[in-house]
């Protein structure tokens, strides 16, 4: 009986473990900092076509142009910039504003040279203190 129980337990653990590990690449998408995004765009632009991805960047001061729940703005980091169009599929977060640190899910439109973000996340509650600190604080 002990052997039977052990076999069943091991089979369940290994079976589900295998499924978990082997399937994780299928429902996944890459994350890019702006610098990495431009590296891929330069070396292999086709790779980005219709690729759902997450891009990180900071909202450029004064770049936000809102139209209802949609918005055009620019994200910047490390001296690089990327125009973004928030499609309005999801509402923009409360902390979306100039200087906010964003994580944006969407696809890159090469023809328009803009990132079309369906979902935008900005810094929220538990990291508020650091996000709110001016650059010279905490150093």
């Amino acid at each position, binding site marked *: *009986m*002990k052997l*039977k*129980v052990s076999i*069943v*337990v091991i089979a*369940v*653990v290994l079976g*589900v*473990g295998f*499924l*978990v*590990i082997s*399937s*994780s*690449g*299928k*429902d*996944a*998408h*890459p*994350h*890019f900092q702006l610098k990495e995004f431009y590296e891929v765009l330069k070396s292999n632009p086709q790779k980005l076509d219709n690729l759902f991805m*997450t891009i990180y960047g900071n909202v450029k001061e004064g770049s936000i142009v*809102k*139209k*209802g*729940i949609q918005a055009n703005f620019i994200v910047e980091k490390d001296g690089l910039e990327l125009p973004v169009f928030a499609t*309005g599929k*999801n*509402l923009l977060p*409360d*902390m979306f*504003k100039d200087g906010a*640190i964003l*994580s944006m899910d969407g696809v890159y439109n090469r023809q328009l040279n803009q990132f079309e973000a369906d979902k935008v*996340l*900005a*810094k*929220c*509650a*538990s*990291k*508020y*203190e*650091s*996000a*709110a*600190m*001016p650059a*010279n*604080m*905490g*150093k």
Partner: protein
Amino acid sequence: MVLSMGTGLVSLLSGIWGIWKRDKEYLVLSRQTLYLHFIIISFSLLSLTYLLVNADFSIAYVTNHVNNALPVFYRVTSIWAGQAGSMLFWNFLLILFSVIAVLHIQKEEPVLVPYIIVILMGISLFFSIMGNFSDTSDPFRVFHAGERIMTSNDGRGLNPLLQHWAMVIHPPVLYFGYVSFAIPYAIAMASLMTGRINLKWTRLVRRWTLFSWFSLGAGIMLGSKWAYEELGWGGYWAWDAVENASLMPWLTGTAFLHSILVQEKRGMLKVWNMVLVTISFLMCIFGTFLTRSGVVNSVHAFANSTLGPFFVVFMILIVLFSTYYIITRLSELKSDRPINSFLSREAGFLFNNVLFVVMLFTLIWGTMYPAFTEYFLKEKVSVTAIWFNKFMVPLGLLLMFLTGAGPLLAWRKTAGKTLLKNFRLPLTVLFVVFFAYFGIRYFYFHYTSLEELKLMAGISFALSAFVISGVVEEFLQTTRARISVTKESFFAGFLMIFFQNKRRYLGYAVHLGLAVMFVGFTGKAFTTETKLVLGKGEAESFQGYLIEVADYEQKSFPENKNAAPLYTSKIVHVNVYKDDHLINSGKTEIRSYPLYNLSNGKYDDVQDTSEPAIMSGLYEDVYVQFGGIDEGRIIIQVWINPLVNWVWAGFIGYTLVLVLLLVPFGEKRVIAFFGKKYNTSVVMQGS
């Protein structure tokens, strides 16, 4: 903070020395320094509270979380609004629980106490070291020279998102859970170190584990309630890294609560219980690490922390320490007997444990996947909520089946006749609900494809009904058996069964609460959403409701014109009609809180918060969030969220039952309280 490190160190070292040299004087010193340590940490916490309440802006933490306009209540809750305060609060709770545990165990099993103190002091010292050596964890840090450049005397204030009743109690309740798991861990390790691996340690950890498990569950649900009411995105769970982090120790804690039962009743799973209590505590530290280190991204959006390496080293030490003692005591941890049958309660518990561990692995894998891929493949990739649902939903359903089936199985082996008798009603209910669900979907709503029929939802409803009917049948049978002896009224007898054998029947009642919550979770499968663009006085239909924008206004709060506005708000008043009848009204807002800009000393920064209108019913919620104005027309996003109230109802049940389980109030006291109405000795036989 420095003193607390000193007392922690003295208590730890004198404890180790006392154990090593068997010197009672050092053991007494270790215990007394623990009490001193508690006094010092409490003083630190009180000092921080004083600084926050009095808005001492020479302190960086105070400046970042308090402003002159913030009410005193929120100034106090700012203790856990940021990292440094949270870490101090963590340490305070740890020492508070340590003192309570030591005072209790000193009476029950004094030989374990020195070891327990050494382990708990080791953990506390870790947090004291972080407070002293990490800039981001020191709540008393004054501004460095040239760092504080604003001109007027004010602070940033508490993040408006945190100014919500659920967010006031969610962090401390969750911390109760995270921190108190250190006590069962310390008791288990002390038992291993002393070689006293008898039944007593499982009895000593039982109430602590229950308390931790209850607090974690309550903390998770309060966080969900806050997200649902405050974030305005229509949901309460998103498989976010921080949410997952809190679920991890809850899963292993649930497994542990069941597996210690097997050890107590059958003398089995002794090694496994030691492993499980270690994993549970490790998951509490891992959860804190995920929340505070910035190793993965989250909507809670953490980063820029210096704490990661501290936590990694600490977790490695826990693993090495626990593994060493488990291995050295392996021969004494052998099971008294093997599992005799798959159709036994112990086998049910074992498979429930396997499922919990598999779920834990899935959660860790999915949560850490971006960190793994970034480290090993040099490309950061994350899995989606769809991936989590793909695994966690079927695993959760299997778990639901075991939740219902476990109590119907007998210890050792369930005879065929008993099996049939016990499963007859629950299985009948399961199939009735299952076929009724598909019948209604197919014949009434005319859905034909599997996707439209929503197979998983049907299984989930059926399994929830299976659990509920099994528990209700058990309650009814026990009540009938009881009142046939006691001659009580049915209602009194029904109430008394919960005090007759609290652990068993209140345990079943927890199952009932979880099944109700599962019904609510299943409602998520039927959520629908849309965006409406309406003028004032216009209405549009959605999912059988007519949703009208009744009014739009902008206001400042408080409305008293002499007071400075706390926030300004754009408010949309919404009416919801069904069959031409007004069934509910509400208002959704976007509030704008002026924020003090530390870099120029002006209130030129703004923090917006979304305030949804949630119009709840037993069957579904109409959830409306104002999105903005487009060419004079109002944009609202509408979600129809079925069965959400079942989630909260199940949670309230879970909470009430667990509070009853935790309070030391059994049948004897109930009888003493309400008066003796029947022959107690007869009743107690059934206890």
